[in-house]
């Protein structure tokens, strides 16, 4: 059963006089317990696709359903982002003047999901679990390495107790060793913790580890 369904989604950019189609009537389903990769060349529309399923943008046609509810019309984009997804970006996008733990706690204070009362210890445990020790958790994030920052970002995405983790080139700024570790964490989330993980990447190596691969080309998902 797909937790997230993309149905006939269209998206394009106005390019001068003519509309340039980026996503051409595409459909896909994403399931819990699976690690999905969206593979495509640069400029193929991977980020565009991710921005649609994370409700940071709205499709020009078609529907995106989370647990059978339209994320924009039924749930509401803001609420969907707040309560149903966790996001990981290529550029980490942490708040620079806050510590690792504080960054995690920001997300925890925004969500309306039921969380354990002790926000701080949940954040520390989560970070510890993902490889950020206590002393690093109390550092402002600009004093952490890229790999460490991306771990913090993953911890933030997980902290709100959501089922859907969306990541855009999460290892794009990392070396191979780090890349392997981050991919392992994400794979683990799917397989051990029953999350639905969607990772956008142009790396065939990462895609090779995925349970499901969507190849994006010419605005369409090619069958794999």
């Amino acid at each position, binding site marked *: 059963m797909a937790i997230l369904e993309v149905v006939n989604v269209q998206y394009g950019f106005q390019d001068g006089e003519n509309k340039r189609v980026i996503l051409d009537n595409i459909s896909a389903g994403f399931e819990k317990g699976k690690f999905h990769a969206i593979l495509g060349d640069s400029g193929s529309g991977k*980020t565009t696709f*991710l*921005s649609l399923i*994370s409700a*940071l*943008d709205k499709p020009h046609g078609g529907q995106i359903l989370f647990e059978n509810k339209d994320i924009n019309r039924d749930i509401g984009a*803001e*609420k*969907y*982002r*707040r*309560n149903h997804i966790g*996001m990981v*970006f290529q*550029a980490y*996008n*942490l*708040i*620079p*003047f*806050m510590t690792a733990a*504080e960054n995690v*706690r*920001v*997300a*925890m*204070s*925004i*969500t309306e999901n039921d969380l354990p009362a002790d*926000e701080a210890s949940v954040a520390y445990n989560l970070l510890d679990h993902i490889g950020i020790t206590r002393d690093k958790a109390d550092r*402002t994030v600009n004093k952490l390495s890229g790999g460490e920052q991306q771990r913090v970002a993953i911890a933030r995405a997980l902290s709100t107790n959501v089922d859907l983790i969306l990541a*855009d080139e999460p290892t794009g700024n990392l070396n191979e060793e780090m890349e392997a570790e981050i991919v392992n964490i994400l794979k683990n989330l799917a397989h051990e913790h029953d999350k639905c993980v969607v990772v956008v990447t142009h790396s065939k190596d990462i895609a090779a580890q995925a349970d499901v691969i969507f190849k994006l080309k010419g605005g369409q998902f090619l069958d794999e």
Partner: protein
Amino acid sequence: MNFFKRATTSIVRRPGKTVILLLLVFILGTVIAGAISVEGAISNTDANLRRNMQPIVSIEMNHQDWANTLEGEYFDWITTFPPHPPALTVDHVRAIGALDYVGFYDYIIEGWLQSFDLSPYTADGRTGFGGMDGEPRSFTLRGTSTHELVQVEQGIMEVVQGRQFEESELVAGGDRSAIIVSEAFANYNNLALHSTITLYHFVMFPDEDGELWGWGTDWWADDNIYARVGMEFEIIGFYDIPLGPDVDENHQDYWDRVTHVSSTMYVPNWAIEDVDARREAALGSVWDAVDVEQPEWMTHGPEEAPERSVTPLFRLEDPTYLDDFRAAATPLLPDHHMLVDLSSTFDGISSSMATLQTISDWILYVSIGATLLILSLLITLFLRDRRYEMGVYLALGEKKGKIITQILMEVLVTSVVAITLSVFVGHLLSSQMSRAMLINQLQAEQSDDHWNRDWTIFDQIGIPTNQMSVDEMIDAFEVSLGIETVGLFYIIGLGAVVLSTLVPVVYVVTLNPKKVLM
């Protein structure tokens, strides 16, 4: 890590930005606080002055207004004459005196009578009321209709011997009236309490040109007097005008007193009306007793004789009633008349304060404008710097309202600190500066000093209107940090800060997290 915690974290962890905002708000706040402090001082001082002002009001003819109504009409004063202006009568005075604001009122009829036997008091022979030998001396009679003279009631005058009028003496009747004279005049003329004096209108035979006025011993010769219209007065009291310990010959008050006590006497109004009416009659009949033709200009004139105008005095229960009293009394006035009060005593400081007020008004408006402009720019720039952070909040699904509240709180917390500092600094600076400016202004205006001041209706009836000295005015100028001033400043200061976050808020609302983060 709710939005409040985020706000405080941001303030503490980004000290550079916080200090820049703090300094800016502090500097602008100091200017605004200074201007508001001056405005507060002006209204304090105004209230101070009004509180200390004697709550006495009179009514004057508005000559300018009257002249305007006659504008364009031509009178040759031979065949055509201007109409009499409407008179202020005792009935008007009674109607206004019945208003609740009035604690006490009186009306004063003035008269001038003469005597060959009595002399005005002259201080060390220095005041020239002497006149020539063989000429009568003139005295000012001030009427009253109440048993307590307003001058006594106001503490300007004291009855040092004897008493004031009794009700029975205030009622018209008989050919004898009570009178209160100055102690100095009585001593000068060897008069004791209960002595009687007689004062006159002398109606003269006209000369060959029909002239009724003249001077010199010949003119005043016994057989040139057609009628001696007199009234006998019994002295029932002596008054004096006390002076402060440091009032000497160099002081205006000293000479005001000399002028007052030398020849001013107090009598019931009816005595003046009575003697004046008999004089009118004598002036009417003198032409029948002589061969001289009455000059044409004397016989012609407006048809009906004017009603006698009186000078009223109202003492209000409280100085603060003034505005309400004015509103209530104005409809009761005869046309072309106006209420006058003693606020002219601080005309000097009022106009200086008005200048100061204009300057501080401008400083206030300009600094509020500058605050709005500079702060909105600065906060927008700061937020542009933080667009990733704002994008993260949005991407995490934070409500825009909470993000805006966070920004508002960051700015407000910093601003409250800055504004609190600037209240004191601004107040300190402005009290020094505004005092210096006021002194300058006042000194510049002293050129038109109190010897040249306008002669008012109050001077005419013996209520002194000496303008305050520069020192007294500066003393009254009170730059105090009242709760109202401080409150006003916080409201204006924080209001400006809140308004300044409007533009940045638009920036946040329109921020697209996709563009910023992906």
